[in-house]
């Protein structure tokens, strides 16, 4: 019995050693499906990226492109009908994709935590905000509520809310303060990696800027690695070292933020950037990308973006392009990039 267990563990361990020198998080060929009545929704397909300690990475793309699913797959917080089909999530040399629920509960919050989408909904309206932030501390560090509350007050200082508001209910806090509270909750157990799932959505621009600045400051102070999920490219440009653009469950372009913004290669990325007004240049009409993303139950055989692409060629409809490195560390999934190389 133990022998078989050891056997099963051996390759895992080897792989762990092999990647030990690499980044804090390495996602390889991650594929996640959702089971629906009509078939499997292929929400995330072969997504790969990696993250060095202290680095921040932005996952961007339109609604439904799989960026949140990819992040939830890292933490294995998928809904009941979701499952990781294949791929590895290597965190500090451990493969999270193969971990049990129990094993994950030891990782969540203590090492990886998440800032949930929509701070209003992620806070219990009838429980004091401070107490909710104390919950992970009580659970993961076995402290009493009173002791955890002391920690919560420090966290409030850290994220810039008055300590006196710890006993306020969520509705007594403003939107920005609720988001700060969510950030405090994510930081409660000193994680190494924080995933921000659209942390600034539904906030006005001023507060958005404050929250982003806060995240940036905390990241430097606490030496956090950070994954920012956003549909807002400007937010990503401002805060992230690296960027990953997703479309229809796949990574279409990845590289440093500079790569992506200064040398956008994939037509989708280019159109996305065009869709934002540029304040430094002449005013132009902001263009939108026409058409809809493909049905992910039966994804097209060729390039997923092909029907909406303005530079498509005949082979786009049939051939699925692979990732091509156009410059050092800058990968693009496009037939034009393939030809260029």
């Amino acid at each position, binding site marked *: 019995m133990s022998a078989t267990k050891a056997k099963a563990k051996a390759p895992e361990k080897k792989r762990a050693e092999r990647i030990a020198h690499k980044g804090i998080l390495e996602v390889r060929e991650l594929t996640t499906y959702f089971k629906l009545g009509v078939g499997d929704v292929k929400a995330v397909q072969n997504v790969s990226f990696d993250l060095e300690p202290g680095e921040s990475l932005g996952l961007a793309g339109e609604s439904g492109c799989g960026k949140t699913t990819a992040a939830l797959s890292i933490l294995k917080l998928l809904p009941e009908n979701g499952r990781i089909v294949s791929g590895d999530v290597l965190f500090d040399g451990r493969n999270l994709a193969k971990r049990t629920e129990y094993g994950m509960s030891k990782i969540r919050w203590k090492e990886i935590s998440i800032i949930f989408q929509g701070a209003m909904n992620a806070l219990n*309206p009838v*429980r004091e905000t401070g107490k909710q932030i104390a919950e992970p501390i009580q659970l993961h560090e076995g402290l009493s509520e009173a002791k955890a509350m002391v920690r919560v007050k420090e966290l409030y200082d850290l994220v810039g809310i008055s300590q006196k508001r710890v006993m306020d209910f969520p*509705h007594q806090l403003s939107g920005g303060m609720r988001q700060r509270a969510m950030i405090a909750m994510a930081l409660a157990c000193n994680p190494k990696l924080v995933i921000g799932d659209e942390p600034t959505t539904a906030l006005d621009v001023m507060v958005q800027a404050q929250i982003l600045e806060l995240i940036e400051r905390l990241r430097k102070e606490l030496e956090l690695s950070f994954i920012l999920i956003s549909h807002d490219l400007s937010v990503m440009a401002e805060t992230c070292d690296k960027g990953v653009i997703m479309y229809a469950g796949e990574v279409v372009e990845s590289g440093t933020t500079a790569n992506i913004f200064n040398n956008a290669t994939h037509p989708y990325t280019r159109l996305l950037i065009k869709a934002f007004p540029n304040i430094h240049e002449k005013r132009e009409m902001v263009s939108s990308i026409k058409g809809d993303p493909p049905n992910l139950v039966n994804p097209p055989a060729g390039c997923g973006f092909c029907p909406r692409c303005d530079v498509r060629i005949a082979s786009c409809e049939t051939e699925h392009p692979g990732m091509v490195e156009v410059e050092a560390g800058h990968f693009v999934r496009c037939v034009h990039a393939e030809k260029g190389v």
Partner: protein
Amino acid sequence: MIPRRYRNWVLFWTPVTWIVLELLMYPKDVPLSEGLSAVLNGFFSARIGAYPAWVLVLGAILTAGLGILGLARKSKARAFNLVLIDMGVVFAVWAFLAGGGASGWSAGENVIGYSWLMQTVVVVLGGLSAWFWATGNPERAELTTWNTHQVWRLYRANWQGMVGLGILVVFVLMALLAPFLTDHALLDPNAQLKDAGGQLLGPYHPPTLSYYNWFGTDQVGQSVLAQFIWSSRISLIVGLLAAFISTVLGAGIGIAAGFYGGWQGEIWMRLTDFFLVLPWLPLAMILALLLGPSYVTIILVVGLTSWPGTARVIRSDTLRVRELQFIERARAIGSSNWHIMRRHVLPNVMPLIFANLVLVVAIAILSETTLSFLGLGDPLNFSWGTMLHYAWVNGAAGLPAWWYIMPPGIAIILVVLAFTFIGTAYDEVLDPKLRKREDSGTESRFAARGATPAVAMGGAGVGGGAGIFTPGRQTDDAMPDFNKPAGGSIGRPESGGWVGGHIEDDEEGGEG
């Protein structure tokens, strides 16, 4: 040092608890003429007041056990646990005395025991333990006092709630003070009411201005007023306890059924349906007959048969709550099902539970009335239902002897109405979503404190060193510069922080 508000709190509730206990346990057979002197005489007498010995043994085990557990867990409040153990010892001694002592111990014996003295000792120890608890767990105690004050502050702004509370207080006082309002001897089957000249008033004498004849006499010439006042005790106790049992059962089963989907939930729901389709009245009658006529029976019968409605309502609300995002968040954190049910689901369905509790209290009082009216009540203890039963059986309605029917009838209506009012008001208090936002604002506190903002600001400087005071600022939205350490600049002006500002002495005035 001990902040004064804990001390006031303990000093207020200890005597109140003592008085309520004493009044509840006041012996029925002390003639009214002896009044309060009976309390003093009975203080050291071996005969007055009564608890069965097993209740006291249970008390001893519970209190001493809690104390020992607390010590074993190295709780911060050491003194509190020591007092608890002391209390357990007192209970044990009391049980020994009540159980018969030297002549052989008996669990059912309940006449001797120096009860007044013992009760006082226990209540004083209880107050002391509360004090030690408050000083041992300052954060918790502060929260408790804060909650109490907040709830009351919000509650008293609601006129319906205050009217309901007013009605209820009248009836509760009447029930508690029954031994001082009427002689229990008047309920004796042979105690017919006489007028000033010593003449019997006779059956169905209409009301006069003479005190015991305010509500006239019944079919054998006894005082209806005396029956009415003593009945209020049974009616209220049965209603409250039955509703409590029913709500605890219903809420527990409802939350479990709603929270666990799948087969576990189904089992709970089918059980609920089973009890729901059973015809209530025949079931209650059969149970009451089997268990024998006593008011404890009625409590159990009403409590055990009226929960399915609550369970269904609570389940439907739990189904809504469990899909909310913060439940998912709590799971992500790693909270257990038990924790999520207790800390997240329960508070969210609490308003509904309370709204339901109130309905159930009303229903329980009516159920008790129904069962008693049908003659299944406690023949030794009058309730309003029993009164109506005797009135009906003896043809009071035909005469019509309205003075025999109307007092219990109107009392039932008023009490049910009072509970409904209180429920509506409490619903509003308990559901933070129904509150106004400025409840945490600064203006109301200044107004309540009766001080000018400048004074309060000065106080803040002493208390917390909180910095800038911006008049009229309601929220902390305007965050000036969060890259600075957050201590003072966005602190709120009032030093009380989240402690209700209307409390006379905030912590800066703590120990004078």
